[in-house]
């Protein structure tokens, strides 16, 4: 397997600060969940020594490693501390992992999003481990009066072979914590890794399988009340008035009132999206009582007029006009078709107009993707307690740092008065980046002057107004008389964001290339959804390439490889943002592992590959149609994410991406009728279930020495097209519209 190799920058400058020592934050119960084998592990130490923001050494040798980022199933709570432990030379079975709170002094980018945690954390996490190790070595050198470079470390033990001296880390922790932090440390060579690259179980497994309170919705504080909200039933509506005269008399109800999550003139940043700022809040003693009272509140809604929203999107100031009206699916589709005729050129190479004018054959296809709801299994929720000018919050969210800023603006309190504790997320997929519910919870707590936990019902959640945009893309290919691809044109847009990445493959592989995009304004609010934009455009592009390959009588893998060969040897333009060699690498690997050249009677196969979020993925999907049911027999996938940190957990994540994508491609959709989503719970919104999942998924990783990149998203986008292309082989019909279930009905 051809892989590129990058030399690590082994000198790493430090930006770590000392942590106040002491502070026992763990319970025994929690601790018992972290290790598989009870007998081998150490008990709790009498004293902890903080070596930096990530690491505390217990007097007995037990080590606490902080996991900086929120955990929502990506397994960073295991893999990030594992990277620290590698450079620390810690004994993994005597490491306990603790979730760090939001702490912008000690940690950077405490986000879930963009599959970036491992990529961006790679050097800082290793540096934190190496620094702590250097301090322990220095402490031992001083204690034993021997040169530091003669001391070796292994599995939490310091050793000076010449003098026969040995100590565990805990014995040196006290002195190490007082020493000056070195300005530079050596990082290990890849060949020296002991922990990275070997499978380690999820540190939270035992707590999950025994039902421990890990999630935001499980959070509880003394005197806590339960809160729920009522939001408008449709986009285009706002709260006019409400009558809670009956509801307020109901059992357990404390208060019912109106709240405003953002002031009208608030300048919104990227993740401040929320459709419904004026809400009715119901607060009471228990969830069931609040749910019942919620139904008894009579609310009147009114249509709002077109208004302007002030935005500051990563420094780009703009005023966005939000149109009035109760939108319908059919009209939205018509508007998209109209908008596509008035698109903006994003990239142009060569002379695409001439290529299409002289083409012997032109293929043109249009693809559609619906709005999607994220449907995290844990409905949106957050705990908040506002006491005077002090705010304590806890719950699941993806971008705590940004949400804290929004909350600070809303309450008019400085950031240092706000504490955000991060609980485990019962799924995120982008939805928990838009943490308007945290603001709502804090405003409610402030009003009732009590700790509250805000909980959305499933219906509140699904109709809550953050969706994957509705997309459309038209692709055109120009072929000459010898079936060479001489022109390529993509025109893509969405309501209200476009899905296009103009500099991705096949840009750079075709001499005459045109990429255009457009948007349709709307009052429907959209947001990031697992592999934003890629989750649609990969499906369209990779289905279209399959059709071109067929038109030019080439094997679909060979056709892609020939384009990648051109992009590598003779690239068009200098803005291509992919590595053709690594792209070809996953295609070659999946070809080999799936025995692509070997046909099986009754099995239809489709292939697809994509690059996003810095990692490469390719899949071959095998299916058959039996009794009018699609049965996915096997998915073989090849992934290149650089150095693999925790192989089995990585596999799990990529398997999940396949299942999630198959389900979304087959069943996922949400439409708007008079501004209201047509689905509000799982009886209407079809989710993939065990019987519909592929029977087998085989995941292969490219062996690599390149710095690691992320895995939460990259395996997801290509699956859609692998499925569409396999369905074509089985049915003779191309699948242009998601979800595929509609076009399958009657065919299969």
């Amino acid at each position: 397997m051809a892989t590129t190799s990058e030399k690590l920058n082994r000198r790493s400058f430090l930006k770590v600060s000392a942590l106040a020592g002491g502070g026992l934050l763990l319970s025994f119960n929690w601790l018992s969940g972290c290790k598989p084998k009870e007998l081998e592990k150490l008990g709790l130490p009498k004293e902890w020594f903080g070596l930096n923001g990530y690491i505390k050494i217990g007097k007995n040798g037990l080590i606490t490693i902080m996991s900086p980022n929120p955990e929502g199933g990506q397994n960073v709570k295991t893999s990030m501390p594992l990277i620290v432990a590698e450079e620390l030379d810690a004994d993994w079975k005597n490491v306990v992992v603790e979730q760090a709170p939001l702490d912008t002094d000690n940690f950077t980018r405490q986000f879930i999003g963009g599959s970036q945690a491992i990529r961006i954390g790679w050097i800082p996490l290793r540096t934190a481990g190496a620094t702590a190790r250097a301090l322990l070595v220095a402490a031992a050198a001083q204690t034993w009066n021997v040169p530091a470079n003669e001391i070796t470390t292994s599995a939490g033990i310091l050793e000076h072979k010449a003098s026969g001296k040995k100590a565990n880390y805990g014995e040196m922790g006290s002195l190490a914590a007082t020493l000056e932090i070195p300005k530079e440390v050596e990082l290990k060579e890849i060949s020296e890794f002991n922990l990275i690259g070997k499978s380690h179980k999820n540190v939270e497994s035992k707590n999950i399988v025994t039902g421990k309170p890990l999630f935001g919705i499980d959070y509880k504080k003394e005197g806590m009340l339960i809160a729920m909200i009522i939001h408008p039933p449709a986009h285009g509506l706002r709260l006019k008035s409400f009558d809670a005269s009956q509801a307020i008399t109901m059992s357990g109800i404390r208060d019912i009132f109106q709240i405003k999550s953002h002031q009208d003139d608030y300048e919104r940043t990227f993740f401040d999206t929320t459709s419904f700022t004026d809400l009715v809040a119901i607060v009471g003693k228990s969830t069931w009582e609040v749910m019942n009272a919620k139904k008894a509140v009579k609310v009147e809604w009114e249509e709002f007029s077109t208004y302007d929203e002030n935005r500051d999107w990563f420094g780009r100031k703009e005023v966005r006009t939000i149109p009035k009206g109760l939108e319908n699916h059919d009209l939205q589709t018509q508007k998209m078709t109209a908008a596509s005729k008035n698109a903006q050129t994003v990239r142009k190479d060569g002379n695409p107009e001439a290529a299409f004018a002289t083409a012997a054959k032109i293929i043109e296809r249009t693809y559609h993707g619906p709005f999607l709801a994220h449907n995290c299994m844990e409905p949106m929720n957050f705990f908040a307690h506002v006491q005077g000018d002090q705010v304590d919050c806890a719950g699941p969210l993806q971008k705590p740092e940004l949400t804290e800023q929004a909350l600070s603006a809303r309450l008019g309190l400085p950031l240092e008065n706000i504490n955000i504790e991060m609980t485990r997320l019962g799924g995120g997929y982008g939805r928990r980046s838009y943490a308007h519910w945290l603001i709502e919870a804090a405003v409610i707590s402030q009003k009732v002057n009590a700790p509250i936990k805000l909980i959305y019902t499933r219906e509140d959640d699904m109709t809550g107004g953050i969706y994957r945009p509705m997309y459309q893309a038209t692709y055109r290919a120009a072929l000459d008389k010898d079936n060479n691809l001489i022109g390529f044109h993509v025109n893509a847009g969405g309501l209200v964001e476009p899905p296009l990445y103009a500099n991705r493959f096949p840009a750079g592989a075709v001499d005459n290339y045109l990429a255009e995009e457009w948007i349709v304004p709307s009052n429907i609010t959209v947001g990031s959804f697992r592999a934003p934009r890629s989750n649609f455009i990969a499906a369209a592009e990779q289905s279209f390439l399959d059709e071109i390959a067929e038109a030019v009588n080439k094997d679909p893998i060979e056709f892609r490889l020939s384009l990648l060969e051109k992009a590598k040897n003779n690239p068009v333009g200098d803005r291509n943002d992919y590595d053709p060699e690594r792209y070809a690498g996953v295609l070659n690997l999946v070809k080999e592992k799936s025995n692509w050249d070997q046909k099986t009677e009754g099995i239809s196969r489709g292939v697809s590959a994509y690059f996003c979020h810095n990692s490469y993925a390719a899949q071959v999907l095998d299916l058959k149609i039996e009794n009018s049911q699609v049965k996915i027999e096997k998915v073989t996938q090849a992934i290149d994410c650089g150095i693999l940190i925790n192989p089995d957990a990585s596999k799990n994540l990529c398997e999940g991406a396949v299942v999630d994508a198959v389900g979304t491609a087959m069943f996922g959709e949400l439409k708007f009728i008079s501004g209201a989503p047509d689905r509000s719970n799982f009886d209407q919104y079809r989710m993939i279930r065990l019987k519909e999942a592929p029977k087998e998924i085989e995941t292969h990783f490219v062996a690599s020495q390149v710095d690691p990149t992320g895995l939460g998203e990259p395996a997801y986008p290509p699956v859609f097209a692998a499925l569409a292309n396999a369905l074509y082989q089985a049915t003779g019909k191309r699948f242009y519209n998601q979800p595929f279930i509609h076009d399958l009905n009657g065919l299969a």
Partner: protein
Amino acid sequence: MAQFNLNINGKTQQVDVDPSTPLLWVLRDHLDLVGTKFGCGIAQCGACTIHLNGTAVRSCQLPVSATEGAQITTIEGLSENGDHPVQQAWMEHDVPQCGYCQAGQIMTAAALLQQNPNPSDEEIENAMNGNICRCGTYLRIKAAVKTAAQKL
């Protein structure tokens, strides 16, 4: 409001709640047994699965008034030390991603194996089909049920 004496995880617990309160909210709000999860509230996702006299049921649709006298088991009471064969198999296969649905999955699997210690692939699929896993860990769930069956 009415008083109910409930037999939960082998212990008798008294609660004073509205008789229509689903057992899910009695467990979560009144007894601090939050391992049983709220997912949909309409018995479609399986996150709230518990055992009622050994049978897997959806606690979000089960009024507390219908549970008096029955033996209720939640994820917290499935085993004393978290070492029920199904829990062990879940850890062995490192099944969870976000983990939110897994208590419900485990309770469904444990009830299946209680009634049918050697289920076929099809029987596993039928039994587990009512539990949604949004992260898509279905293949590991299936493999873990098979492993647990061997251990029982």
